[in-house]
């Protein structure tokens, strides 16, 4: 008995209802099973759910930039992505970049042009083995996770900043992210519940959302808005994420932070004292109606902020023992990098069941007066 070929699936991500309707009609006519989303984050969810062969993606979406959406999709989907832009002048710029998209079309487009472009894409498609998908899932989850880490060191005058990450075999949901701001630095440190691709994908969403709120001046409103978006995204998966987000004002040494259920950040002083920063509220997505107060510490010269994942905590019987051990390993090191390495070594690779992540933001000691 001949088996029916699986129908090809497509997802249309487009905020303009008329264009969305048109795209759906064209694709249905071409034999696709089509679903749609009117914004970036719901679009990512829909692609995750529908596992389509083709995605059409508008460049200007109400929530996330189309390029950011494309990057997110590429972290787990190998669907053909066709980007649509209303501005013809953007087209040259886009095609010259490796954005992860397979083709670009400017609006207005003719249905025939779209059809022939799509046909051309599918002619190029390589045959893929079905069975390797499952076998490579963990490998891909690790790739997703690694892709979330900062690709470059960050330099802030008067500070030494480093981070290390060691994925576990089963892939936890850890990641950290940082970037320069005019005032100093933004740092995000997160751990998604569970393991495997699910945790890695949640981490990817959290990273994108936190980055998208970085423009907001006010930490409270930035975090409130980000946590709302993340929680909405997590609701369907019954999952949550612990999140430590900090903003450094380099000149004053003030670190403003919000801690949602992490609780494993330490302020280590130049004198060798460790103060643990307790979490301000539950993990994001864990409990509706949660609020997270903002707190602050001041890094004096020689002080450091050390953020550690629970993969290190697992080695110890109590938080007190953990704090002492991190202090002993991290204090008095020659650099932030060597402090990170020493703290990571507390959780030996052979026995660690979870990811291990450490970030150190050290304020350099003031040079001795001449």
């Amino acid at each position, binding site marked *: 008995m001949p088996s029916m070929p699986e129908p090809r699936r497509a997802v249309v991500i487009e905020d303009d209802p008329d264009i969305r309707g048109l795209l759906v009609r064209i694709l249905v006519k071409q034999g696709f099973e089509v679903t749609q989303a009117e914004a970036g984050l719901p679009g990512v969810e829909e692609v995750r759910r529908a596992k389509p062969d083709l995605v059409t993606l508008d460049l200007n979406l109400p929530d996330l930039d189309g390029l950011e959406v494309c990057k997110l999709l590429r972290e787990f989907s190998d669907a053909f992505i066709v980007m649509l832009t209303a501005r013809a002048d953007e087209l040259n710029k886009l095609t010259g970049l490796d954005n992860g998209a397979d083709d670009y079309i400017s609006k207005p487009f003719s249905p025939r042009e779209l059809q022939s472009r799509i046909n051309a894409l599918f002619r190029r498609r390589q045959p893929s083995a079905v069975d390797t998908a499952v076998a490579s899932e963990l490998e891909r989850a690790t790739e997703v996770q690694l892709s979330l880490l900062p690709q470059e060191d960050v330099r802030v005058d008067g500070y030494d900043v480093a981070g290390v990450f060691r994925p576990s075999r089963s892939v936890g949901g850890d990641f950290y992210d940082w970037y320069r701001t005019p005032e100093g630095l933004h740092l995000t440190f997160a751990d998604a519940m*569970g393991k495997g691709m699910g945790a890695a994908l949640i981490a990817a969403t959290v990273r994108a959302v936190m980055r998208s709120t970085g423009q907001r001046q006010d930490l409270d409103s930035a975090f409130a808005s980000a946590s709302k978006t993340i929680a909405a995204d997590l609701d369907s998966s*019954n999952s949550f994420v612990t999140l430590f987000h900090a903003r450094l004002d380099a000149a004053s040494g003030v670190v403003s932070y919000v801690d949602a*259920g992490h609780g494993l950040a330490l302020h280590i002083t130049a004198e060798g004292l460790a103060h643990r920063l307790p979490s301000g509220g539950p993990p994001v997505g864990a409990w509706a109606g949660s609020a997270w107060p903002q707190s602050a510490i001041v890094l004096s010269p020689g002080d450091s902020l050390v953020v550690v994942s629970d993969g290190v905590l697992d080695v110890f019987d109590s938080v007190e023992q953990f704090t002492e051990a991190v202090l002993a390993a991290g204090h008095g090191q020659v650099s932030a990098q060597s402090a990170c390495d020493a703290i990571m070594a507390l959780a030996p690779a052979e026995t660690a069941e979870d990811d291990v992540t450490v970030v150190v933001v050290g304020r350099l000691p003031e040079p001795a007066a001449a």
Partner: protein
Amino acid sequence: MEFSYEVKDSYAEVKADGRLNMVSAPKLREFVTDVIAGGSSRIVVNLENTAFMDSSGLGALIGCLKAARQAGGDLRIAGVQPQVKMVLELTSMDRVLTAYASAEEAFSND
């Protein structure tokens, strides 16, 4: 991990013995959901023999709490051991999941 339950006067006591991790968490969820569906929405999860809980385990407890409240009841935990207590405190979930020394005390005041 092994589960058992016993219906008492004003609540149902669920015992979860072993390690509450990614493997056992969905089973606890299923087990408690069944107890709630069976008509008991006031649940005490007795954790005196739960030596370890990871984030998935915490997720399961939260899910069970939501289910119990949804059904007009509540879920409380008892006999919490040090590692589980530590996870609850670090994550500030001790503000949501109220811990009692014993299962008998959990619903004794209401």
